[in-house]
């Protein structure tokens, strides 16, 4: 009873924030709304007895990724997004995708309503930190390692892209770029 009320409270908040995220023209307002979505999702995880996932949701998405997004928005001082009338066909595409998503959601609701209700087993501790850790480092060790290596590759890639060149190297790059531009102008 209480958990149902809480679910509808947080689900409603999440949907409101999601709508506000799409609706706002100002990127910072959109980012803040997205943080609201993440926080209410975390609360829903808590009501589903998954405290670890809930906290990690806040820590990673609201606390790290969105902080970086807001930081970049502030650093570039982005203004309101101008109206883009030339992308009219995207409205049709978005509408189509929305209908597909709605159909999918309705199918999930239908499928859930068809399955018989099962009593909750109090001995199940899937959401606990201990069980998640154990599963990650025994049964699912390979996927975890693969994800780790991929993240490392991403970090190395970004370091390579953002590295400072030494002066001769920099001049070489600038010369090449100038040549390219002059060729473009000539042709």
């Amino acid at each position, binding site marked *: 009873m209480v958990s149902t009320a809480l679910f509808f409270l947080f689900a409603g908040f999440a949907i409101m924030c999601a709508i506000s995220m799409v609706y706002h023209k100002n990127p910072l*307002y959109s980012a803040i709304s997205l*943080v609201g979505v993440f926080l209410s999702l975390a609360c829903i995880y808590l009501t589903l007895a998954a405290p*670890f996932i809930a*906290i990690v949701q806040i*820590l990673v998405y609201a606390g790290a990724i969105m*902080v970086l997004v*807001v930081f970049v928005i*502030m650093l570039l001082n982005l203004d309101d997004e101008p109206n883009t009338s030339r992308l009219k066909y995207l409205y049709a595409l978005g509408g189509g995708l929305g209908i597909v998503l709605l159909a999918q959601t309705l199918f999930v609701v239908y499928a859930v309503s068809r399955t018989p209700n099962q009593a909750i087993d109090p001995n199940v501790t899937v959401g*606990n*930190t201990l069980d998640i850790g154990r599963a990650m480092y025994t049964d699912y060790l390979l996927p975890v390692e693969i994800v780790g290596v991929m993240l490392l590759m991403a970090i190395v890639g970004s370091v390579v892209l953002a590295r400072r060149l030494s002066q001769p190297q920099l001049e070489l790059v600038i010369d090449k770029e100038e040549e390219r531009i002059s060729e473009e102008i000539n042709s």
Partner: protein
Amino acid sequence: MEETLKLIFPYVVVLIGVLLAFQGVLMIVAYTVLGERKVLGWIQGRVGPNRVGPWGILQPFADLLKFILKEDIVPNESSKVIYYLAPFIALTCALMPIVVYPFGPTITTIDWSFLPYGIAEGVHTLRLVIAQIDVGVLFVLSITSVGVYGIMLAGWSSNSKYSLMGGLRSSAQMISYELAMGASVIGVVMLAGSLDLTRIVQAQMGSPWYMRWFIIPQFIGFVVFLISAFAETNRVPFDLPEAETELVAGFHTEYSALKFALFFMAEYVNMFTVSMMATVLFLGGWYVPGLSHLFDVGSVPYALISIGAFVGKVIFFLFLYIWIRGTLPRFRFDQLMNFGWKFLLPLGLLNLIGTIIVVFFLNR
């Protein structure tokens, strides 16, 4: 009727606990401000505030009254919604971690029989923690990381270059030092074998206490934690977000009256919660060595002395904050970033790797 009362009794206890804990923390915070002004005064050869009440003990209330009565100025060109939201985010995120800290041991001999209708029949225990959750450490870290928004949004929404610079500096600083802090906390978590703050305190109990408190086996972790805690709370020597010689008052330049007071309180509450974290992780929390020989474990005096010890250890850290504020100059921004990324984080990670190796061989 009686059944209903019995049912709601635990919730009433928790509610009273929440009110007491928050009220107590806010009172300590108010007197930290006074203590800071006094101690800074002594360090600098001044007297400090001594006009309001004997020794100035009513100064915090005078300050609060002044904050309430001052004119509230809102900049015309600010983004109003976010401008009003930011101080609330800052203070809420500063106060929320309090709920997971264990203030004292569980009292097992409490007598509720004076209550009418026997509503507390058969209840003899009282936990001195508001919410004992499985992931306490992560909860504290995540709420702290959300707290950055208060400062960032305040800086952005004020529509002033000083505020924006302060907000940017602060978010860059907090993102950087959060990593070092996390690395130093994981060492303690590995030794204790739990993310639950109550379990971490219990892991530090027993004799000899100087070997059990994690400050000894995790001394490097302790130093890394303390330095990054200073950076996380934007205190001297890491107070670049509000460096008054360059940025007027940093992110809260455009805030006045009660909204400024909220930021001010948030800063001191953050100091307090970080000090509680340091106490719980490295100084054994509420545990007093040898106290179980004098009083029964679980009795009321044992619990009271433990709470006193906890508050005393926290006040030691608060004093350290003030002491360092009176001693050290401010970092330059590039020094701050280099120190965080090139020294503190590698040191934290090395400490972590060392701890992993030791724990691995100990558990074999």
